């Protein structure tokens, strides 16, 4: 694995937790909308976002994260969660990476952006 991928792998849980904090700071209404279990579900989902992003970065292939983005969008839509919330979560993952792992973030951000773009297709 590349050094950036290894760094993300090592700190993936911290990144997912920070991304969840950012999502709830930016959208405080989520606490009311999804109840007490919502935050836990958000962090679980953020952990998946980071793991699929890591997989994409590790083999330098954006299509891994793009495919995941589309699949996640469609899956969460069945539970009434809009694509905009998925995009917001991806942005929060990017911001958490920039804050915590700036070097790896520079490598990973184009992959995240490709995933965000795929959400709109």
């Amino acid at each position: 694995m590349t050094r950036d991928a290894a760094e993300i792998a090592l700190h993936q849980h911290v990144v997912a937790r920070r991304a969840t904090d950012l999502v709830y700071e930016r959208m405080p209404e989520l606490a009311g909308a999804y109840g007490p279990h919502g935050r836990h579900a958000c962090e679980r989902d953020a952990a998946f976002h980071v793991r699929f992003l890591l997989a994409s970065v590790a083999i330098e292939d954006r299509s891994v994260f793009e495919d995941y983005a589309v699949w996640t969008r469609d899956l969460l839509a069945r539970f009434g969660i809009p694509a905009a919330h998925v995009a917001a979560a991806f942005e929060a993952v990017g911001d958490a990476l920039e804050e915590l792992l700036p070097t790896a973030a520079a490598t990973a951000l184009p992959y995240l952006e490709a995933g965000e773009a795929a959400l709109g297709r």
Partner: protein
Amino acid sequence: MAADPRRLAAAYVEHALAGDKPRALATVLEPLRDERIELTALYDEVLAPASAHVGDLWHSGEITVADEHFSTRLTQEAMARARALAEARAQERRGRVVLACPPDEHHELGLRMLEDVLEADGWEVHALGAGTPARDLVAYVAKVRPVAVALSCGTPIAIPGLLEAVELLRAGDPGVRIVLGGRAVERYPAIAGAAGATATFTTLAEARSGIAALAG
């Protein structure tokens, strides 16, 4: 007359999703018993695509988790019965092969299919199964010194674990032959390059001939 794998797969899925276990099993086992299809083709062209189709139906919300789980268990049962038929035909004895899924890979159906076809070819197969920790895999390979190590990666989330396993195997023995397969490896060819695999196989038929060729 040779069986048509596509029709068998479609009928198998239809009976499985209808909950008709006897008809589903008969659909795939009778042609094998009658030698209208051989084991590798039954797996490659009937059970593997049927399983992938059932997985896709679950992904798209058209069937429930219970339907998907029942179909998977049914396929495992079909494989157990198919294996019993195939084992009786194995003749030649060959070398040792280690099979494993990397950490975070919990889908081992493909690996079990490979186990069955290699066993039927006379290989001594050491299947370590789903989610094998990379360091434990390396230690096991050092202990049994196989002709090749085959790793199956079906889901992209297991890619980092796969890369780690290959790195550690190479660090332990730079000459170790590592072959990769599975749905993720097929969909994302970049995995093979990033991992530095000896070879990549997308079907069981390819894996059979490829592993035989590696052994010389």
